[in-house]
């Protein structure tokens, strides 16, 4: 290691607490986020397992759990969705990998605001604890679904779990919003202000672009959800009527909430609120959130497809503009979740056109990924397998979008399993495949050892086949009119006929979930026993591979890297080897 005067970053702290618990090091924080998401994903997966079992074997006795009641099913569904969307899909790809690798990939010693970074992780952690606490309070966790539509979510006596459990759910999400806002602020500042010399915006790896645009989406979207959450809490506890209309009647009880900040002698009934207002606010956040979940995965897929095909990414600029276009359009399509809600049919028309437009940049990305593979020399190592799986899932999940985006086709499909299949493929498992790809790819850098290839391949094949076996049939079910969020199909005759397909899906889920333990074993076994990793085991070009493994406290050992090349210079004619690192001297002219 060359040693010159140390740069201005804080020295490596001593002591366990400062180094591993309240660490200011973005790498430690990234790993903390990753393991938080790992814990969350196993909770969420367990909940989905219980749901699948209940759907087809409703009287099954689950060890330690007993029989699942219909209202428990809705609780499982709500918490599965919430935990997966917020604490897995938003946390792992963005906050986890983003925290660890964004500063290194742009050549920065740390995030712009390390203390804020630490705060943002611990705030997320508190949000997770509050969310899990909802299971253990009187009445249990809420049953209003992850979308929390008012008035179901706004009136404590609308169902079991809608009392304290629902309050905790809202509070947890509000805390999560604050954490995400802090994170987004840090990401944006870091990208804009801490890039190494020569790291122009158009030389940033596509992962960085994805994290950057995702952070902008988060910055604009989470504030809106926070506001909506505050309004919902006020409706629930202080007697206001933002979302709750008047004249409601819940199984014989009039809804009267004790009026907060009001004379103690009077109670107010709700009057005049708008349930649709909640939906507008929620989906104004909710649709960008979908892209918050998937954009980092797109970034990882782009990076990996180029690296393992040994070929520059096809159309780098188009990829960047496509990410931007998706980010911008993501803010003007929220109404497509509300075609059946009673919203003005004229605005439905406009939202539908915008939604179709968002298909265009998505198609550009797919085209460019295939173009990257074309005439490459594809190294089929595990990270690449998951990147290819990502493309396949993205195509499958994406192509059901144009059905749902047409209001007239949304009539039969809205709120059926078709929608469930659509979003699970595209923002659920596609994003998860992005996380897996990232894990197998960056694990050597993070932990200094390689993950097991054979286990990885088996994990990949079972997971890919399994996810298709679970989620593709959902499209068929949706066509046949199977409504989502039904805990049983015994009551509606045409739906009872569909149970055999549901049973098949449950078996597929059992196998797929079992296969995830292969990943877990691989992860923890390789951390201790995996083969030692070199600094650049995949022969990648980006900056994280030019420093030591694992990177030193300030990432580059007291140095500031200088960037002379674009991010994906593979197989450059005339170059001594088949890749030119971004930090290689500028002898070969590239961009």
């Amino acid at each position: 290691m060359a040693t010159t005067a140390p740069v201005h970053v804080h020295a490596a702290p001593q002591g366990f607490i400062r180094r591993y618990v309240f660490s200011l090091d973005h790498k430690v924080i990234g790993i903390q986020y990753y393991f938080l998401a790992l814990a969350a994903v196993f909770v969420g997966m367990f909940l989905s397992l219980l749901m699948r079992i209940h759907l087809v074997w409703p009287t099954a006795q689950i060890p330690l759990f007993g029989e699942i009641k219909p209202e428990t099913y809705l609780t499982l569904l709500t918490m599965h969705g919430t935990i997966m969307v917020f604490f897995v899909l938003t946390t792992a790809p963005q906050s986890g990998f983003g925290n660890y690798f964004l500063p290194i990939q742009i050549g920065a010693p740390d995030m712009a605001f390390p203390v804020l970074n630490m705060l943002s992780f611990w705030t997320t952690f508190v949000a997770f604890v509050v969310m899990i606490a909802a299971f253990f309070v009187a009445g249990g966790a809420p049953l209003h679904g992850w979308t929390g539509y008012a008035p179901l979510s706004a009136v404590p006596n609308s169902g079991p779990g809608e009392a304290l459990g629902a309050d905790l759910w809202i509070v947890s999400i509000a805390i999560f919003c604050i954490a995400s806002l802090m994170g987004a602020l840090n990401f944006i500042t870091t990208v804009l202000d801490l890039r190494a010399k020569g790291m122009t915006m158009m030389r940033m790896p596509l992962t960085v672009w994805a994290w950057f645009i995702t952070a902008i989406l988060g910055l604009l979207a989470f504030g809106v959800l926070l506001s909506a959450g505050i309004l919902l809490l006020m409706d629930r506890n202080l007697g206001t009527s933002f979302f709750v209309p008047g004249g409601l009647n819940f199984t014989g009880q009039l809804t009267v909430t004790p009026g907060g900040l009001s004379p103690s002698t009077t109670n107010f009934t709700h009057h005049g609120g708008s349930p649709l207002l909640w939906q507008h606010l929620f989906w104004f956040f909710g649709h960008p959130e979908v892209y918050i979940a998937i954009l980092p995965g797109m970034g990882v897929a782009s990076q990996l497809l180029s690296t393992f095909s040994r070929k520059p990414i096809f159309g780098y600029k188009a990829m960047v503009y496509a990410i931007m276009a998706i980010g911008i359009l993501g803010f003007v399509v929220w109404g497509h979740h509300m075609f059946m809600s009673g919203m003005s049919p004229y605005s439905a028309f406009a939202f539908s056109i915008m939604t179709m437009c968002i298909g265009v940049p998505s198609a550009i990305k797919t085209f460019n990924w295939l173009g990257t593979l074309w005439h490459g020399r594809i190294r089929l190592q595990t990270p690449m397998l998951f990147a290819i799986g990502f493309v396949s899932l993205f195509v499958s999940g994406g192509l059901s979008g144009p059905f749902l985006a047409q209001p007239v086709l949304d009539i039969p499909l809205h709120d059926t399993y078709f929608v469930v299949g659509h979003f699970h493929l595209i923002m659920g498992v596609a994003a998860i495949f992005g996380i897996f790809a990232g894990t197998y790819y960056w694990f050597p850098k993070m932990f200094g050892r390689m993950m097991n290839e054979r286990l990885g391949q088996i994990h990949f094949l079972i997971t890919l086949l399994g996810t298709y076996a679970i989620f593709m049939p959902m499209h068929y079910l949706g066509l046949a009119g199977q409504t989502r969020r039904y805990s049983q199909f015994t009551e509606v005759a045409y739906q009872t006929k569909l149970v055999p397909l549901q049973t098949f899906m449950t078996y597929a889920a059992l196998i797929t979930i079992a296969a995830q333990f292969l990943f877990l074993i691989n992860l923890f076994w390789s951390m201790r026993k995996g083969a030692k990793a070199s600094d650049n085991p995949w022969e990648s070009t980006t900056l994280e591979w030019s420093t030591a493994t694992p990177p030193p406290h300030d990432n580059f050992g007291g140095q500031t890297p200088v960037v002379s090349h674009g991010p994906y210079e593979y197989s450059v004619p005339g170059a001594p080897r088949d890749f030119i690192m971004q930090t290689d001297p500028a002898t070969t002219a590239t961009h």
Partner: protein
Amino acid sequence: MGTLSSSVVLKDSKAGDRGPKPPIYGGDSGGPDGGSSSRDLDRLRRARLGLVLVLVTVTMIFVSFTSAFVIRKGLPTIDEKTGAYVNDWTGVSLPVSLLLINTTLLILSSLSVELARRQIFRRAALAPVQAIPGVSVGEDRSFPWLGATVVLGLGFLIGQWIVWQELRLRGFYLATTPSSSFFYLLTAAHAVHLFGGVVALLSAQSISWLRRPVETQRIWVDVTAWYWHFMALLWVYIFALLYFAR
């Protein structure tokens, strides 16, 4: 960034999978010493950038409140007795004079925080000179603008509390009408943000008590001052919204 020296150490790295490979580095940025160095300017710029992003977030929160306000105001609801759509919006009677006094307090505090900001910039500029032994640039006894801002800010918050009491006396509680709900919501949300500003000012002050470098204090004061100006502007906007669209 722009402060990098040109002493680029270049080393050719061989096959990537063979042992640790030293990366290619430029020089370090900034120097370990030297008053208002470019490093401090970097920090200031970064903090300001962060602030802009904070303000974007705050704006989004108030934009969503505003859109809720506008939608709710124009929204017809079903009248239970007739089954017809009616508009149930009733305006709050605002204690306008009290609110005007509060607005004046806040604008004055915005002025004083600007003076505090300029004061700290002057002090930071003189700091290297003062550091020279034997050189005195006069006693540092200028007016405590930071303290004045805190007092004015707290005055505004107390004023808002009085407005709330006044509103209660007039019979407008949080859940009385949608209009009063929004009044309490917007004023409380603004008050919470302003209180955050007060806390930031107090921490800026405590930096000097803790004898941390004046540079750190300058960054805190600068960023808080801009935040404070934004809060004043936001208040004027909220006041206008509540007054003209009530």
